[in-house]
């Protein structure tokens, strides 16, 4: 009884919001994120088994869906994974069929990811992320802290080592719109930043200076890189062209700036620094200018900011004692929302999902969080200690 009442309620809400209440809708969205109150979309799956069922369930839960018994479902996905993968999505309320398809070619995982993305698009009206990719660092457990840079599907499957250098590496950052990364490596016995074309395998030095080059982040237009260099005496924020030319120093402090990220319009760089005794997030125009603190009212020690592709949010790590939490604030600052324990969040292209690092004893694993519903699933963790994810955009 209670359940059947929910459908009309949801429908009414959507109708109300579609009208003249734009401002209210905006506020409501923020509140939903704040409290984790957005209800998952309820879906029933029938006809799937084995790997196909596992992948489908994973993809849909990360996308903000919940797999439920048919009586509670808003959507029915019927199909088969025996032989050709098929899927028919039906609206459980009015019984209308949204689509009915079969998939061929590629791997089964890829077919299922495609089906999942189409379900997300048809039922939720947003673009799916199941066919996106991530890059991350893997510590292999060798002596001396060596690791390699990997890329994989967004769920950690199909992971491929991009480097085979057996040295310390860190902070891979995708070049938007290109099959390339920049990252830090100790390959030449110094923390340097290199560019790596994933198609040709070509690598070039972007920054190699005394005093360490760290934490590169490529601008949304793929042309510039923000990074932390210690060459002037202490870690400061710099920008340069992607080939390392045109180097410009943006901050000059005795403090340690760290973890720069870009606003999606490329106008600002947000980074972690310190003001007095207090660790803060701040932003500065990407061409240089005044450093402005981004106010955060209720959590401390923010680091590792990442600006959402839609420009609205900044996700970051807050630290209290030995605990790390993933938090999100409006991009201009405000009250932070603590989402889940973890560190180093990176936004998906949908500005809704985060990938972050979780500590499990001595190991670290990557985990995916659907921010509005707070549904959380760990990526495949078969490679050693994984951290520092970057989402391809």
């Amino acid at each position, binding site marked *: 009884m209670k359940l059947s009442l929910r459908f009309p309620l949801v429908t009414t809400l959507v109708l109300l919001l579609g009208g003249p209440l734009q401002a209210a809708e905006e506020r409501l969205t923020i509140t939903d994120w704040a409290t984790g109150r957005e209800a998952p979309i309820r879906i029933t799956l029938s006809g799937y088994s084995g790997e196909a069922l596992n992948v489908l369930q994973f993809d849909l839960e990360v996308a903000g869906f919940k797999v439920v018994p048919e009586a509670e479902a808003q959507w029915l996905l019927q199909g088969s994974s025996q032989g050709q993968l098929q899927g028919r999505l039906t609206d459980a309320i009015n019984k209308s069929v949204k*689509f*009915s*398809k*079969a998939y*061929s*070619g*590629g791997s089964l995982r*890829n077919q299922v*990811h*495609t089906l999942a993305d189409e379900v997300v698009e048809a039922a939720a009206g947003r673009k799916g992320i199941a066919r*996106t*990719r991530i890059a991350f660092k893997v*510590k292999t457990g060798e002596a001396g*802290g060596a690791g390699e840079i990997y890329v994989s*599907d967004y769920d950690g499957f*199909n992971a*491929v080592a991009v480097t*085979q250098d057996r040295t310390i590496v860190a*902070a891979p950052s995708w070049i938007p719109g290109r*099959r390339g990364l920049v990252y830090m490596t100790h390959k*030449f016995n110094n*923390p340097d930043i290199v560019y790596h074309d*994933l*198609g*040709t*395998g*070509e*690598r070039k*030095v972007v920054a*190699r*200076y*005394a*005093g*360490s080059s*760290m*934490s590169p982040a490529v601008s949304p237009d793929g042309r510039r890189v923000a990074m*932390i260099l*210690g*060459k*002037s*005496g*202490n*870690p400061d924020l710099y920008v340069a062209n992607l080939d*390392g*030319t*045109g180097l410009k120093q943006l901050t*000059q402090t*005795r403090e*340690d700036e*760290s*973890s720069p990220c870009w606003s999606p319009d490329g106008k600002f760089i947000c980074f*972690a620094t310190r003001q007095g005794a207090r660790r803060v997030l701040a932003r500065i125009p990407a061409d240089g200018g005044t450093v402005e603190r981004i106010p955060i009212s209720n959590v401390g020690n923010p*680091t*590792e900011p990442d600006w959402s592709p839609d420009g609205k949010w900044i996700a970051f790590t807050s*630290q209290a004692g030995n605990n*790390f939490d993933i938090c999100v604030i409006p991009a201009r600052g405000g009250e932070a929302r603590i989402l889940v324990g973890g*560190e*180093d969040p990176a936004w998906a292209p949908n500005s809704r999902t985060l990938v972050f690092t979780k500590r499990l004893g001595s190991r670290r694993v990557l985990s995916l969080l659907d921010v509005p519903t707070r549904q959380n699933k760990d990526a495949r963790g078969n490679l050693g200690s994984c*951290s520092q994810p970057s989402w*391809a955009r």
Partner: protein
Amino acid sequence: MKRRFLVNVTMLALALTVGSVGCKKPEKGVTPIQSGRTGSAPTRTAPVTQGGTLPGGAGTDATTVRETASGFPEGDLSLIEGMVPDTNYFAAQTVYFDFDSSLVKASEQGKAQSVGNEMKAKPQAKLMIDGHCDERGTEEYNRALGQRRAAALREFLIRYGLSPDQIYTRSFGEDRPVDPGHNEEAWRKNRRGEFILLLPP
């Protein structure tokens, strides 16, 4: 490379078009999936090209190094290329730091001074200072903190009378702990600055 990428995009667009056409019709449409992985996969890895066109080299020489708001600018990395590191020589002089701090404590300064005395007697040698952190802190924050620790020791030695161009720094962040434990005893050993003697080849 670029051409291949464009071809892939076209194929993907085609696949999406076919998919969306199938979407409108209630009957069963077939969405072709590209074989292989979606998006990018590295094919091979070439060695990094080193040297040649490194941008905007620091090129600071001893006579022009002046203290700035950031501290003392670092020297030219190419001047220590090919030098032979001796990691054991100053092993007993490793300096330890407090949690989340880059302050060279009074109790640790004697070790740094003895390194300074030795370096003054070895004008042909250089010194590399490696900054390290414990695991309490986010990775890139720790990488910056490790650099700040190394820079603090370098500044201490410059004020002690060493030439800025004799001393180099780098950070290992939390990546190379001495003790892999997850307790204060391990963390205390890991928050450190190590001195490495660099000798001419």
